[in-house]
């Protein structure tokens, strides 16, 4: 039977899922235009037109909702739709007269339309308390609260350029927050609590020791058990030890929370891709709606939206005005934590006299 079991077939070929207008104009699109928030048209060299309507999605979807999207696609798009790399849903129409009805249906369903062009799009995010053992904060809840506050910028094109927000619930950064205009990053702030009883059973002590990048972990015998001890001063809470050993839990309601980072990007447009930099070292978890995080993101968005030049991404804006001014304008206090002390720290010291006074 094993031979008949289907394996290694790979995903279905995408061609099966392309609407005729795409097949006809594949690789021959000439230009696009944004018609209104969340709606754009791509025009082929042939003159054919493809209309896209982009709707918000919470990403965590029940099969019911997926079926509803499928129904809408049947109703308006001959059954063709796609998802985006930021987890929005895109409906692909050839008949522009159907656009408004589709939008009305989507709004009715509770899915704002927007996110195209100079707008704030969906937040790339991760599992959080919904499904991951490693989380220092929830993902979906923070995202929901923040986007509730920013839906207006999703549904319009009233900001200077694109602004990409991402969230990752721990330093593993599955949300790849390291290159986002605004990144929300779950962090632990307390060294792992060692379960000495189980450690030697569940984990290989040499591996545990080797996992620590700062050499904070030493072998030790505790209550007669071979175990480890951790030098608190050397721990920077990366959780790599926990990843290799479940007996070293990091999660801690009193000390977990989020940090906020700014100014990263991945596109090559104008400036090269760059990492996000620390803006706010720590905000405690405050479920269900993390009001301090919402407020902090809103503040960053406002400072950028009100002061950036056209097309200027967050990081480009900050580079132009200088970090001191950024801290001034946002009212964020600059602290020791902002100063890099990792491997390449020295390269972030200001090594010139080019300063505003």
């Amino acid at each position: 039977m094993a031979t008949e079991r289907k394996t290694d077939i790979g995903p279905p070929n995408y061609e099966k899922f392309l609407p005729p207008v795409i097949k006809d104009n594949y690789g021959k699109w000439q230009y696009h235009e944004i018609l209104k928030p969340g709606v754009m048209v791509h025009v082929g060299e042939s003159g054919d037109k493809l209309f896209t309507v982009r709707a918000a999605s919470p990403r965590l979807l029940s099969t019911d909702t997926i079926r509803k999207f499928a129904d809408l696609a049947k109703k308006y798009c001959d059954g063709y739709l796609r998802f985006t790399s930021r987890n929005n849903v895109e409906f692909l129409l050839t008949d522009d007269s159907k656009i408004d009805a589709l939008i009305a249906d989507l709004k009715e369903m509770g899915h704002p339309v927007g996110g195209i062009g100079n707008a704030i799009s969906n937040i790339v995010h991760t599992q959080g308390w919904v499904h991951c053992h490693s989380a220092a904060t929830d993902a979906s809840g923070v995202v929901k609260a923040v986007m509730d506050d920013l839906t207006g910028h999703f549904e319009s094109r009233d900001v200077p350029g694109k602004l990409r927000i991402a969230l990752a619930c721990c330093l593993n950064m599955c949300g790849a927050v390291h290159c986002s205009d605004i990144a929300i990053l779950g962090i632990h702030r307390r060294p792992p609590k060692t379960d000495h009883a189980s450690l030697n059973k569940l984990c290989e002590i040499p591996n545990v020791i080797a996992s620590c990048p700062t050499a904070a972990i030493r072998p030790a015998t505790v209550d007669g058990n071979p175990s480890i001890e951790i030098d608190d001063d050397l721990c920077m809470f990366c959780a790599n030890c926990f990843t290799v050993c479940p007996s070293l839990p990091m999660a801690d309601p009193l000390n977990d929370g989020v940090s906020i980072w700014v100014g990263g990007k991945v596109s090559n447009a104008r400036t090269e891709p760059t990492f996000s930099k620390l803006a706010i070292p720590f905000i405690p978890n405050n479920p269900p709606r993390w009001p301090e995080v919402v407020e902090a993101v809103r503040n960053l968005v406002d400072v950028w939206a009100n002061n950036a030049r056209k097309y200027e991404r967050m990081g480009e804006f900050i580079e132009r005005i200088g970090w001191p001014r950024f801290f001034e304008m946002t009212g964020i206090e600059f602290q020791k934590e902002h100063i890099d002390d990792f491997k390449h720290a020295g390269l972030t010291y200001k090594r010139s006299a080019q300063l505003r006074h």
Partner: protein
Amino acid sequence: MADSGNNGTPLLDELEKGPWPSFVTQIKEAAEKKASSAALLRLLERSYNEKIGHWKHGGIVGVMGYGGGVIGRYNDLPEDFPEIAHFHTIRVNMPSGWFYTSDALNTICDIWDRHGSGLTNMHGSTGDIILLGCKSDDLEPTFEELTANDFDLGGSGSDMRTPSGCVGPARCEWACYDTLNLTNDLTQEFQDELHRPAFPYKFKIKCAGCPNDCVASVARADLSVIGTWRDEIRIDQAEVKAAEKAGLDIVKDVCYNCPTKCIEWDGSELKIDDSNCVKCMHCINTMPKALRPGTDTGATILLGSKAPIVEGALLSSVMVPFMKLEPPYQELKDLIERIWDFWGENGKNRERCGELMQRIGLGNFLEEIELDPIPQMVSHPRDNPYVFYEDYYEEGDEDEEEEDE
């Protein structure tokens, strides 16, 4: 916060308010049909109360013959939440470009309603369809139904992860190669590497059609394929004027932002010094009707990006500045195989490719994967004098210079 716990979800209910679509509503929808999702809802409310997650490290679970594609998950309160004592994730390889028909989506929903929680992520960060939560016993039947319907699993663990690509030529005028075809082709070519972890660590591939990099490949893929061109930007001067008329300040908003200042506008003609253009896309982005990438297109191949754990985050760096990309993509596949061979033999456990490259040094790495060093691979040559010159003359070497007399 009085009546939290089994009698309701007051904290999560707060997250049904507001204009953005709510994941809580989604879980509740699934909870109507599925005891597991109902349990998830309660567990999550408890996490919200306690400010801590309740999931444990996964054990090794999966489908027969595969080493990847399933993330094992167990909660740490199995007595209180037996319905989700195990609650594994199945990663299903999405179609390239995340294109679907309604029928295909419904098929997936049917399968998942039969075997799992009825909850998904559309999509996971790597690009997979995430079927969120099922029992160990349901893995194999789900897999069987998926393959019967042409779907297969994605990657997890130390294997090639599910490659992804931007919408590309299907709906973008800037695609410099066929991202969907390449994504699909590589996925099919490397099925074994995808399903059976045999690498030192994960290996991700992302295909972006142009330097806008709409799949964040430079930051999130070990192998980043970024479309580009090497001839001239195509200009429609009439449309440039039209763009200006429509309100664009071409000098300030376009020329001024060009990273190499190689584009000039004198009010009547747009001039680009293409030999200095670094293909950043900005001018094209701002005038999509007037400008288009050239026609001699291909891609830049970069290697090594990853998240920070544990040596620090990396962006991918240039391996091949320009490669033509036409099926069967042999040059690219050969390069990938050479990289894998070397990494497979020399990578430490849990060492990503980009980390290996940094550990042994780009120069040595290039030798091993048989690429010549070229200046395009660096932002600038070294600024420290600590050069490991490899050979030195010994006294009496034949190329020794004559000593006097």
